[in-house]
Each structure stands twice: as structure tokens, then as C-alpha cells.
């Protein structure tokens, strides 16, 4: 079995490289389709044709975009992410701290939201049709129906402006003690938990109910097996595939999709970096961010696929 999994991992790694390449090319073509280039955007309203030409020359943007892209890819092989067009800093330096920030926020949110969502989803499935089940559904959907920016703004108004319990901005560089850390991360983590939990709760519930209604589980229940035991021993392992996929899809949002939380709490992460990069058509930075998003996503779904395969004996 281990060798089978190892084989699978190796195969998936090879495929991941191909997927990554496809994504990088797709992002490159997408960026080239956008009007304007770094020179004209940096000049903004001052972009007269001569000025743009002059700056483009000075920034070495005269080579065809595809050539610059291939050069960047080549550099990537040596572990070099290139230099930002917009401010001439190494991309690695721009991404570094922000990547750590993003991972911290994603990690804490995962630790909180995944156990919470799975517990709610499984218990709701076990008590299907009950008041508890409906309450969980209404709350889960209600919570994601509120736009993220509204959840975040409400949280700030309540906890920072009126109660003054928490700071309105999440300035990571001001965190010195554990209490600071909790105060800083509380609101972004709660907001993100609101956003990503619903999908996990709902999908877990649906998948568990589905397996609970398969003939053999029903048979076992008829024979007098306890419901809780059945869920843990039979239903859950069988539902694991869809559940981990839902979890992976939800968590992938935490890598590149937290732009609203980053903006409202002024938390410097890589989602905002990508937005800036697209706005200035900063190709090396766009590509590097896209690569991180893609790798994060591939990592998550590959783990999901492996868990799915291992949990189902017939798939091994």
C-alpha cells in the first residue's frame, strides 16, 4: 500500500509540474491581454507616447513579453523569482514577509475552522431533520450569505469601535506577546472562518447522509448497531473522499482569496500583492504570486486525492 501511495505521489508530482506550467502560461497570456504595460501605468495620467517609450526603454521592457516570460521561467529553474518592474526590488524580497503572513493567517484559520466545521457537519448529518440540523443549516448559509466585507466591517465596528476590545488593524509588526497575537488575529480569523466553514459543513453533512443511506449501513442499523458507532466506523470513512475535497477547496481560498480581509484589516498578505501586481502589469510579480497560489492549491487537492484513495479500499 505504501509503495502504491508513493507511486501515486510521484505521478502526481510530475503532473503538478505540467499543471503549474499550464497555469503560468495561462496567466501570462491573460496578463498580455490586459491593456497597457508597466511603463504606461506607472506614468498614469502623464503617459504621453514619448514618455512611455522612454521609460519602457529604461526599464528594459522593449523585448517582446514572451521573451521576458521565458527568461523569467529560466531564472525560476535557478530559484530566482526575478525583479519587480514596478519598484526594482527582488520579487523574493517583496513576497517573503507577506507569504509568511498569509500562511500564518491561513494556518490559524484552518486550525479553528476545520474541526469546527467537521463537527457541525457530522452531528447535523446524524441528527438529520432535527431542529439542530436546521439551525446549523440556516446559520451556515446565513453566515456566508452576508458579504465578507460586511462581516469584517461589522466586526470592526462592534469589537474595535464600540467595545474597544480589539484593534481595528491587524499590524503584525506590533505583536510582541501571545495576547497581542490573539487580539490581532481574532477578527480576521473569525471573518475567514465564517466565509469558509459553510462549504465544509454543508458538504460534510451531505456526504455523511449519503453514505448513511447506503444499503449496507442501513442493514447494520437495522441489526441494531449504534448510530454514532456506524457513523464513525463506516459512514465517515466512506464519505471521506468528498469531505476532504470540500475541505481542500475551502482552504485553497485562504491562499489567494483573502483580499477583502487583507484590505479591511490592513493585513499585508500575498492576495493584495497579486492585486497590486496585476494593476501595474508587473509580470515577474504576477507570475510568482500565481505560482504560489497554484502550488498551494495543487498541494491541497493532491493531499485530498491521496486521502480519498486511501480511505476507499477499492480505489487503492
Amino acid at each position, binding site marked *: 500500500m505504501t509503495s502504491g501511495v508513493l507511486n501515486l505521489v510521484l505521478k502526481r508530482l510530475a503532473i503538478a509540474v505540467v499543471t503549474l506550467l499550464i497555469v503560468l502560461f495561462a496567466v501570462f497570456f491573460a496578463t498580455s491581454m490586459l491593456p497597457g504595460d508597466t511603463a504606461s501605468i506607472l506614468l498614469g495620467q502623464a503617459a504621453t507616447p514619448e514618455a512611455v517609450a522612454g521609460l519602457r526603454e529604461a526599464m528594459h521592457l522593449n523585448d517582446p513579453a514572451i521573451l521576458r516570460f521565458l527568461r523569467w521561467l529560466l531564472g525560476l529553474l535557478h530559484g530566482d523569482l526575478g525583479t519587480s518592474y*514596478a519598484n526594482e526590488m527582488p520579487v523574493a524580497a517583496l513576497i517573503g514577509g507577506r507569504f509568511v503572513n498569509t500562511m500564518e493567517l491561513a494556518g490559524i484559520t484552518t486550525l479553528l475552522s476545520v474541526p469546527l466545521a467537521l463537527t457541525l457537519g457530522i452531528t447535523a448529518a446524524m441528527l438529520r431533520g432535527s431542529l439542530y440540523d436546521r439551525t446549523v443549516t440556516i446559520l451556515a448559509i446565513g453566515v456566508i450569505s452576508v458579504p465578507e466585507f460586511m462581516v469584517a466591517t461589522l466586526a470592526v465596528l462592534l469589537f474595535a469601535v464600540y467595545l474597544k476590545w480589539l484593534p481595528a488593524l491587524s499590524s503584525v509588526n506590533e505583536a510582541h506577546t501571545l495576547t497581542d497575537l490573539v487580539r490581532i488575529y481574532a477578527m480576521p480569523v473569525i471573518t475567514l472562518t465564517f466565509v469558509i466553514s459553510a462549504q465544509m459543513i454543508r458538504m460534510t453533512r451531505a456526504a455523511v447522509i449519503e453514505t448513511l443511506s447506503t444499503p449496507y449501513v442501513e442493514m447494520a442499523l437495522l441489526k441494531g448497531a449504534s448510530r454514532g458507532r456506524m457513523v464513525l466506523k463506516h459512514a465517515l470513512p466512506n464519505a471521506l473522499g468528498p469531505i476532504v475535497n470540500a475541505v481542500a477547496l475551502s482552504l485553497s481560498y485562504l491562499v489567494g482569496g483573502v483580499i477583502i480581509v487583507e484590505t479591511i484589516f490592513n493585513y499585508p498578505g500575498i492576495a493584495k500583492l497579486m492585486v497590486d501586481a496585476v494593476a501595474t502589469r508587473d509580470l515577474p510579480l504576477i507570475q510568482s504570486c500565481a505560482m504560489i497560489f497554484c502550488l498551494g492549491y495543487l498541494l491541497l487537492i493532491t493531499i485530498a486525492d491521496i486521502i480519498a484513495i486511501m480511505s476507499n479500499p477499492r480505489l487503492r
Partner: protein
Amino acid sequence: MTDKITNWTSADDAMVENAIRRGASRRELLKLLLAGGAAFAAGSVVLGRATNAVAATPVSGGSFKAAGWSSSTADTLDPAKASLSTDYVRCCSLYNRLTFLDKDGVTQMELADSFDSKDAKTWTIKLRKGVTFHDGKDLTAEDVVFSLKRHLDKAVGSKVAKIAAQMTGFKAVDKSTVEITLADPNADLPTILALHHFMIVQDGTTDFSKGNGTGAFVLQTFEPGVRSVVTKNKNYWKSGKPHLDSFEFIAISDDSARVNALLSGDINFAASINPRAMKLIGGQQGFELSKTTSGNYTDLNIRLDMDPGNKADFVAGMKYLVNREQIVKSALRGLGEIGNDQPVSPANIFHNADLKPKAFDPDKAKFHFQKSGLLGQSIPVVASDAATSSIDMAVIIQAAGADIGMKLDVQRVPSDGYWDNYWLKAPIHFGNINPRPTPDILFSLLYASNAPWNESQYKSEKFDKLLVEARGSLDQAKRKEIYGQMQTMVSEEAGTIIPAYISNVDALSSKVKGLEANPLGGMMGYAMAEYLWLEA
């Protein structure tokens, strides 16, 4: 430029100041203000100012945190490339200019001691002595020549290359004297050099990330798109300044988040707040508002060289269709002054006050549209969040059009790439113009036949001639007359509709003192860092 709100007058100001000296409580003052007819929020503004006037002894020390509204990885400490308010604020804390504009719009000397010229063509600039850069080197004429000359280098990507182009000769006469020669006479040179882009950097600088200037603060941390921290320059040449020990600047692009961060005490200063948040801040103890009306405006541009703008009646009709009062009232919530389709704002000493804005008149508009044969046709109007309030303005104009059967098809396009793709290009579109200190700059950039940003493609030989005449004249009265005439021409003949000059409102903690309005924009023309102090 002024703080006057509603029917508040300087007499009322004096009354409030007196009341504070008498020791009136805040509540009494509010009563006083409300009795005077000022709105609640407006009361706060005046209150803040009056208190400032009393507590006039600056306190030294404290760390200050301010938030602007936009920041990105393209943030720069190179004054020539500065493009956002964020860049201006940072550059102002690190560098100095040769001159600056004071609160009344009058040009004052900063690094320069004097500007002299007989013919407005060759200028001799004497530099202040004893000024040093952060790295300890003295300021010399070479630094000034380098700082000004680099704007002509296309590789620099200067935002003011067009304005700088008139400087043709640069000479360091001696250690503290610079001679500048212009292509054509221009009496405004001292004012032009008060633009933020003309900050003085050290000769030979290529890496600007150190922020090595002569300014009030020394750079400590600079992370583009995240934050900057500067600390007090102990050797600053202006005695007694700066008051603050450190000054941190961040940007919070979300309007509500910026206000909330101020109210929660995370920051001391929130720049450019949404007018709709005034009610919120005015209702809280310990916060104040500061209003600046400079020359910033959002204009509706109808290109005269394209369909439908080439039909004079269409343009005339549009000018009647724009309900300026409603735009100021609803889109800007009163934080603006009605404009009269020309770019020289009331904050400018050359403003032509006799030129009255066109009144909203749907019947006249309909008459003109009918005459142009376009009534009933769908006309696209391009708007974007990139041009402040343009979508709201477009919707207001659209609704007015719908009432008389003129169908305007408002097209919201992304902010992303707006200046590149739509501005100056679409037949009918919105623009947004930042304040410029002189009519000459405004007219040369925006209305001369060869202007780089001729938004409506307005061409007039007479106008071009007047522009050159006024530029070279050292006679202030004559210039005022010519500029007045040019304002009338633009207002009647060009295709740019300027419905209002937009005010900027900054919100701050009541502990922040020393803030004054400035014609170059909010945050004291972005130079507030060295003037502010924090009350203990």
C-alpha cells in the same frame, strides 16, 4: 482652500475662539454652533480649529500614525515618480522643495533664499545656507541642478516631464547659486517649483529607497505597499521642527475601514474620508474634521473632434443637462463648490469670480439636443471608479436625460487601466484632475492646442496666444485679466464640463494639533508631518 462651511463666517470663528478662552465647555460650544446654523459635523471642524488657535504652543515628542487611501507595490520615494498622495506624504517628510505654497496660496521660500529674474526667462536662485542631507553632506547648487535636470531624462519617468520641459538651461553658478534658463518667459517658475515632484535630492542619487533628503524626518522603514516609518531629523535646518518623534504612514483603501481605524484609536489621522462618514465622526467625542477645497475636480469630457461632440448643439445641451447643484448636494454631500466649466478654482488667486456656472435647464438642453438631431438616440458615457465620483455624477446626468428623452448609456469600466484606455480616448468620458498651483500649468497641460491632456480636443489660436502672453508677463493685474478671459473662453467653448471642485475632508483625533488647510491638497498639501504635534 478655506474651512468655511455653510453660512459660517470669520465673525463666528472669533466668537467661538473667545468662548474657548472664556473657558466654555464643549457642550456649550456645540450649542453655540448649532444656534449659528452650522451643521453638527461642521461644528466639529470649527471647534477643532478654534482649539488649535488657543493651544498654540507645540509639544515635542510622540509617535504619529496616519492612513491614506491608496498604496501599492509601486510606492516610491523618488519624488519625480511620485504618483499617489501616499508618495507625496512620504516625500514631504524626507525632502524639501525650493519653494512651497502657504495656506493662502502664496509662494514662500523653503530651500531657496530668493528667486530673481528681470525677464522671467533667466532665473537666479540663491540657496539657503547650512542645510545638510540626512547623510551629513551639505546642500549645494549641484544637488539642485541634478534634481531639476533629471525630469528631462525620459528614463526617469518623471510625472512632470511636460512642465519641466520649459527649463532648458541649468547652471550651478557657485556653491549656493543656481541659474535656470527657460525656453520662453514664465513668471510662475517659483510657484511651479513648489510642485511635489520638484523636491531636492542629492546629486547622483540612483537608489531612492534610502530617502536621503534634507527633510524633517529620516527614513527608518519603507515597505512599498505596506508602510513607512520615519523618525525625527535632529539636525533639521528649520529650528524647532519637527515636533513628532516618529511618523508612520500606511494606506487603508477601504473607506469605512479607514474611519473605523481612527475611531478605534489605531491611527491618529485618516485622510480623505467619505463625506457620508462625516455624520459618524461628528457624533463622536475626541475627533475632528478638516476640510480643504483645492482645485481637484472630476469633469465630463466631450471630445469636440468626434461624434457626437462635433455637433455644437449636443455639447451645449449637455452643459444645460448637468445639474451641478444636485451633484454637489447628492454625489458630494455638500463637500464641494459648484464649478463653472473651467479649471481655475476659487482657491486660486487668478479665479474669475464673475464667470457664473450654467444653471440646470432641461428645457434648454432638450432644445439643443433636438436641434442636434440626437434626441432619442443612445449615447455612451464612460465612467469609472478611477475618476472620483464619476459614476454617481453619470447616474445623476443620466436620470436628468431620461426625463427629457435623452438616452445616456452609462458604461462603468474598470479602474484598472482607465487612464490608459478610456481617458482622453472615448468620445464622452470622465476625467479627474488634481490641483495645480497656477493657471498656466492647468491651461498648458489641459487646454492649449498642443496640450498633452487636451481632454476635449479644444483648439483655439487666440487662446494659445493669450496663454503665452500671460506667461511672460510680470504684471500681476494684467495676468489676472488675461487669465479671467481665458477662463471664460474655456467655459464656453471647450467640451469639458466641470460641475464642481471637490473638497477633501481629513479626519483626525482631537489630540492632533497644528493642522491647517493648504491649496495643494489635503493633509496640509501632503506636507503635514513636520508641522503637526500631539497634545499630551
